[in-house]
C-alpha cells in the first residue's frame, strides 16, 4: 500500500514538473513570437520622437528597413494616434490610452503588457498628419502582404478590397508576381480587378476585370456594376456595347448567387424559428400528446425556466459564461417540480375532464404570471448572453449566421433526442407509453399510474423550463413570455399530430420555415396570421394532424 502511494506520489510530481516545463516553454515561445524589436531601432525611436514632422517620413522608412515586419505594432499604434514617448526618455515609445480619470494607461507596444498609468505631463504624443497616415497604411499593407503567413496575407488583401489607390496598386502588383498561395492570389486578382474597373481607361482591361469579378458578392462590386449600367433618357451612358454586355452578365450572375444565399439565410431563419417552436412544443407534446392533458400553464413553465436563468445569473454574477450551463438543469428542476405540484394538486382530480383541466391550468397560469409580476416586477428582465453565444459566423459578405440561433437549433435537436431516448429506452418511458395507450390495463399490470402521471407531467414541464432558458437568449424575459408561445406550441403539436413526437419536430420546422418564407412577401404579422389560418383549415381536413396516431388507442 505504502509503496504504491509513494510511486503515485513520484509520478504525480513528475507530472507536475512536466506541466510547469511545458508552460514555461509555451510562454517563452509566445514571447519569442511577439518579436521584440532590434536594438538597432532604439536610436531611430529617439529621433522619431524628436524629429520635425517633415522629417518623420524618412525616419519611418528607415525604421521599416531596419526592423522589417517586427515594427508592425508600432506602425499600427502610430496610425491610431496612440503612440507616445516619455518626456525624460525620448527613445522609449509606448502605447497610451486615455482613461476615465483623464490620465493615460500605458501599454508596451510590442507585448501589449500594461505598464501602469502616467499623467498628462510625463508623456508626449508623436504627431501624425494625413500624409504620414497614408504612408503608414501603405507600410502596414506592405508588411502584411509580405508576411510569411498566408492567412495574414489573405486578410491584408481582403482589407484592401475596394480601398486600393495609386500607391498601393503597385504593391499588389508586385505581390501578385511572387504570390504562390491560391486563395491569396485569387483575392489579389479580384482586388486589382475592382481597381481597374474603377480607374482603368482601357475597355479591354475593364471587361477582363468584370469577368474576374463575376459572382463576387461584395456590395462594392454590385454598386460599381450598377453604376456602369446607369441610363440617361433610356440610353446607356456607357458607350462600349461589349462592356455593357459583360457588366450585365456579371450582375446577373451576382444576383443569382445572392438570391441563393438569401434563400439559405431564410432557410436558416426558418429552422431557427422552427427550433424555438420545437423547444416550446416538445414539453407540450408530452403532456398533451402522450398524457392527453391540456396544460394551459405550459407557457408559464417556460417563463419560470427563463426566470431561473435570470436568477442564476444574479446569484453567480462572476460566472456569466457558465451560467447557462447551470441554468439548464436548474430550470428543469424548478419547472419540473412546479409541474409535479400542479399534477398532484389539481390535474389528478380532473381525470377524464379535459375541458375542465384546460380551465384549471389556465387559472394556474394566471396565478404564476401574477406571482412573477409581484416578485420580479412587471418589467422585463435582462438575461446576459455569454460571450460564446454572441457574435455570428460570417460565411461570406452575403451570409452570416448568429451563434445564439445556431446553438439553439442544435440545443432543440439535442433536447428532442434526449426525450426520444427517455421515451424509448427507459422504464419511465415504457410506463408512460403503456399508460397512454391503455390506462386500466397498465394499472392491472402493476404500473403505478399515479406516479407515472406525475413524472410525465414533471418531465414535460421540466423541458418547457429548459426551453425557457433558450428563449431567454432570444427575447426579453417578462411575465408574458409564456403567453406569447402557448398558442404557437399548441398549433405545432396539433399540426404535427397529437401523441407523435416526430410529428412535433416536422410540424415545428415546417411552420417555422413556412413563416420565414412568407415574411418577405407579407410582413411578419401577416405571415403569422396566414399560418394560423392555414392550420385552422388543415385541421379541418385532417383532424388528427400530419402524423395521426394509428391503432385502437387513437379512437375514442
Amino acid at each position, binding site marked *: 500500500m505504502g509503496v504504491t502511494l509513494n510511486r503515485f506520489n513520484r509520478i504525480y510530481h513528475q507530472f507536475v514538473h512536466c506541466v510547469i516545463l511545458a508552460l514555461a516553454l509555451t510562454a517563452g515561445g509566445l514571447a519569442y513570437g511577439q518579436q521584440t524589436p532590434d536594438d538597432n531601432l532604439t536610436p531611430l525611436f529617439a529621433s522619431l520622437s524628436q524629429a520635425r514632422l517633415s522629417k518623420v517620413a524618412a525616419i519611418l522608412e528607415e525604421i521599416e528597413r531596419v526592423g522589417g515586419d517586427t515594427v508592425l505594432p508600432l506602425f499600427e499604434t502610430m496610425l491610431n494616434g496612440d503612440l507616445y514617448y516619455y518626456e525624460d526618455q525620448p527613445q522609449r515609445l509606448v502605447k497610451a490610452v486615455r482613461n476615465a480619470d483623464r490620465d493615460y494607461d500605458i501599454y508596451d507596444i510590442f507585448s501589449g503588457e500594461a505598464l501602469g498609468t502616467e499623467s498628462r505631463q510625463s508623456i508626449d504624443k508623436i504627431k501624425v498628419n494625413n500624409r504620414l497616415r497614408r504612408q503608414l497604411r501603405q507600410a502596414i499593407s506592405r508588411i502584411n502582404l509580405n508576411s510569411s503567413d498566408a492567412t495574414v496575407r489573405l486578410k491584408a488583401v481582403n482589407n484592401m478590397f475596394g480601398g486600393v489607390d495609386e500607391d498601393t496598386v503597385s504593391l499588389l502588383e508586385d505581390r501578385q508576381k511572387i504570390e504562390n498561395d491560391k486563395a491569396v492570389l485569387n483575392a489579389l486578382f479580384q482586388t486589382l480587378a475592382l481597381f481597374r474597373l474603377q480607374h482603368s481607361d482601357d475597355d479591354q482591361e475593364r471587361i477582363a476585370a468584370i469577368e474576374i469579378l463575376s459572382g463576387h458578392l461584395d456590395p462594392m462590386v454590385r454598386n460599381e456594376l450598377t453604376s456602369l449600367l446607369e441610363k440617361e433618357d433610356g440610353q446607356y451612358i456607357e458607350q462600349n456595347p461589349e462592356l455593357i454586355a459583360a457588366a450585365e452578365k456579371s450582375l446577373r450572375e451576382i444576383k443569382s448567387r445572392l438570391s441563393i444565399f438569401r434563400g439559405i439565410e431564410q432557410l436558416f431563419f426558418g429552422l431557427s424559428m422552427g427550433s424555438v417552436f420545437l423547444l416550446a412544443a416538445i414539453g407540450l407534446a408530452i403532456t398533451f400528446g402522450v398524457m392527453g392533458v*391540456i396544460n394551459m400553464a405550459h407557457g408559464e413553465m417556460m417563463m419560470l425556466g427563463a426566470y431561473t436563468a435570470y436568477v442564476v445569473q444574479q446569484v453567480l454574477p462572476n460566472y456569466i459564461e457558465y451560467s447557462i450551463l447551470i441554468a439548464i438543469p436548474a430550470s428543469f428542476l424548478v419547472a419540473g417540480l412546479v409541474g409535479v405540484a400542479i399534477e398532484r394538486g*389539481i390535474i389528478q*382530480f*380532473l381525470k377524464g*375532464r*379535459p*375541458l*375542465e*383541466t*384546460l*380551465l*384549471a391550468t*389556465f*387559472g*394556474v*397560469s*394566471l*396565478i404564476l*404570471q*401574477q*406571482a412573477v*409580476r*409581484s416578485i420580479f416586477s412587471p418589467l422585463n428582465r435582462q438575461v446576459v448572453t455569454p460571450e460564446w453565444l454572441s457574435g455570428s459566423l460570417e460565411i461570406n459578405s452575403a451570409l452570416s449566421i448568429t451563434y445564439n440561433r445556431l446553438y439553439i437549433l442544435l440545443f432543440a435537436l439535442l433536447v428532442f433526442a434526449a426525450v426520444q431516448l427517455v421515451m424509448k429506452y427507459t422504464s419511465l418511458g415504457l410506463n408512460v407509453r403503456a399508460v397512454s395507450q391503455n390506462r386500466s390495463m397498465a394499472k392491472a399490470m402493476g404500473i403505478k399510474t399515479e406516479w407515472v402521471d406525475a413524472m410525465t407531467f414533471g418531465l414535460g414541464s421540466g423541458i418547457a423550463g429548459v426551453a425557457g432558458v433558450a428563449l431567454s437568449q432570444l427575447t426579453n424575459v417578462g411575465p408574458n413570455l409564456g*403567453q406569447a408561445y402557448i*398558442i404557437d406550441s*399548441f*398549433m405545432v403539436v*396539433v399540426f404535427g399530430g397529437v401523441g407523435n413526437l416526430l410529428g412535433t419536430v416536422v410540424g415545428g420546422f415546417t411552420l417555422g420555415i413556412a413563416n420565414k418564407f412568407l415574411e418577405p412577401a407579407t410582413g411578419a*404579422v*401577416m405571415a*403569422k*396570421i396566414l399560418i*394560423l*389560418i392555414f*392550420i*385552422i*383549415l388543415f*385541421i*379541418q*381536413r385532417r*383532424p388528427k394532424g400530419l402524423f395521426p396516431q394509428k391503432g385502437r388507442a387513437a379512437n375514442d
Partner: protein
Amino acid sequence: MTNFAETLGKFRLSANDKTSFVAVLFCFTLLAAMGNLLIPEGSALHVSTYTITLLGKYLCFALLALSVDVIWGYCGILSLGQGAFFALGGYGMGMYLMRQIGDRGVYGNPILPDFMVFLNWSELPWFWLGFDQFWFAMLMAVFVPGLLAFVFGWLAFRSRVTGVYLSIMTQALTYALLLAFFRNEMGFGGNNGLTDFKDILGFDLQSDTTRVVLFMITAAILAAAYVLSRMIMDSRFGRVLLTIRDAESRARFIGFKTERYQVALFVYSAILAAMAGIMYVPQVGIINPGEFAPLNSIEIVVWVAVGGRGTLYGAVIGALLVNYAKTRFTAVLPDGWLFALGALFVYVTIFLPQGLVGWVNKRFKSQEAAA
C-alpha cells in the same frame, strides 16, 4: 350559509321559467333607470350615470356569458374564441359611431375617421362604405360574426373536430384576429381601435338619458335572448343538442346530422355574442383589438363555470358576480385580481363542477330530502 342557500334556492325555483327571469330583470332595470332619472342627485337612492353604465356593461357580459352557455352547457362545445364574435360585433357598432363623428374629429375630415387621415389615406376603404347607415351597420355587425361562425363551424363540425381540438382552434381564430386587427393596414384603427364617439342616431352618447336608454335596451336584448334561448332548449332542437352533448356518436348513429345542429347553434351563439358587442361599445365608448385577446375569451368561460353551465340563468348570474367582484377587487387590490381570478378558475373546476347554481340546487335538494 343555510339562509343564503335557501334564498338562492327560491330564486332557482322561480327562475326556471322565462317569465320570472324577465320579471326580475325588468324590475331591476326599471329601478336602476328611475334611480338615475327621477331621483335627484345627492339623494341616497340616486343611481349615478357611472353606475348605470357599469350595470349596462355587466348586462352585455351577461349576454356574452349566455352565448357561451348555449354552446358549452347545452352542446359541449367549449369555444375559447367567443370574444372574437363579441369584438367583431363591437367593431361593427364602432364603425357606425365613427362615421357619425363626421367633421367633429380632430382633423375635421367629414368622411374619413381621424386615424385614416393620420395614415394619409385619401379615401374610405370599401369595407367602410355604408356604415354611416345605422341599419346597414347593425346588419353587418351581426352578419359578419355570424358568417365567420358559419364558415368556421361548418368546416370544423363537418370534419368532426370537437372537444379540446375545437377549443384550441377557436383560440387560434381569435388570436389570428387579434394580430390582424393590431395592424394599421387593416383599416380598423390599429392598436388604438375606434374611439372618441360623439352620438348615436343623433342622441348625445354622454347624456344621462342616452345612457339609461342604452342600458334598458341592453336589458331588453338580454331578456329576449334569454327567452329565445330557453325556447330553443325546450324545443325538439334543444333535446337533440343535449343528445349530441352527452353522446355525439350515438346521436349520429340514430340518424341525426349532428354537424347541422352544431353549426346552427354555433352561429346562434356567435350572433348573441355579437349583439353583446354591439351594445357594449356605445356604453364603454371604445373598441380596440385587446377585446380579441385569448384571455378575454377564457374569462367568459369562467363566468359561465362559476355561475353553473347548462342552466342559462347560471351564466347570467356568474357573469354579474365575477364582474362585480372584478370591479371591486381591481379598485382595492389591483395586483390581487389575477391571483383571485386564477384561484377562482381552479376552485370552481375542482370543487364546484356545476357552478354556484349547481351547488345551491344540491343543497336545496338535500334540504328537501331532510325535511
